[in-house]
């Protein structure tokens, strides 16, 4: 159950960061967002 909640939180944060990446005007901030998203996706898929 705890893991499910953990993964739902990750989904939520990942969506927020992706949304922010699309709204962001500064390309460096967009790049930073993309780097943040990668470990979240790996965690979401329980790969690492």
């Amino acid at each position, binding site marked *: 159950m705890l*893991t499910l909640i953990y993964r739902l939180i990750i989904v939520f944060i990942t969506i927020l960061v*992706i949304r922010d990446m699309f709204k962001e005007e500064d390309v460096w901030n967009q790049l930073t967002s993309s780097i943040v998203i990668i470990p979240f996706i790996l965690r979401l898929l329980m790969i690492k």
Partner: protein
Amino acid sequence: MKKNHKIAIGLLVFIIIISIASGIEFIDQWTPDVIVAGPGVTRIATLSDYFPELKGEFSDTAIYFLESEHPGGTVFVLGGTHPNEPSSMLTTVLLIENVRVTQGRMIIIPQANLSGFSHNDPQEGSPRSIHFNTLSGVRQFRYGSRATNPIHQWPDPDIYINQFGQSLSGSDTRNLNRGYPGDPEGNYTEQICYGIMEFIRKEKCDLSIDLHEASPEYPVINAIVAHEDAADMASMAILDLQMENLDYNLEISPPSFRGLTHREWGDYSDTLAILMETANASQGRLRGRTDEDLVLTGQDKMYVKAAELGRLYVPYDETGHPIEERVGRHVMAIRNLVNNLNFMFPENTVEYHGEPTYQELLENGFGHYLLPSE
């Protein structure tokens, strides 16, 4: 379409590519190691045969039986408690692939914490695998993490309170050698411990040996740690090893140091419990560059310097401590422990042959004794 949206879409494609590439690499670490059942292996069981709750779990590790037709004792050898201590698993692989038992039986678990082999510690610079040239090609084994994979057991508490009420660091909740005697209702790692305890009790193991490695700066190194019931046998084995120019320290298992094999195996079963350590620079804190070469040779100029400063508990020079030496020490110590088991308890005699000696390992290399993997 706005420019920043185009960039975001491009970055999403980039994210997907990186995630797939790194995901493939991480998942590759889940691929089982090839361990060939040698001529002495009579059957292979799994840990869930002793604790059915583990059925279908990643941790349901293989158990190799090497049995003779003549009755005798039972020796149990456990490797891979800590998958970043490679001489542990490699010694058991060597025994599985080479040994024939002529009296009694030897039972071997090469990868006690199978979950720990499914990931490693990238921030420690750990290699993902190690390789050996054999007579029939290259054999590969994973170099894993000390602890259970967090995808199997999560989260870590800030402080791990073990079954005896003692406080340990939070990450020790995933350390197999802190969770004995195990708990059938406990966490993932404690359940593996319980499965191994059940195995020892049901198979009535007379002598049980847990193989490890330690940092060169750790005091308990090149050592045999014995439960008090096994102290006499271990003392005699160490004298025999010294006759063969292999120095060992004898450590008696501290009664208050709970959760470890050398304590709980002896307290919660009738077995004679032993834990052994060799010197592994690749897990030490003083090491320099960390790669496969360091794992296999132990050559590290930082440890040579540390030895010159008197900071280590083992001799250390430019020749390092190669894997052949470390496996050879384990092989010779097991041999001498079994010899003394036979001497002290003739009704529990275990006779076997086929394993290389310490000198043969140094001369021919570890890979020489691995069987073809196909």
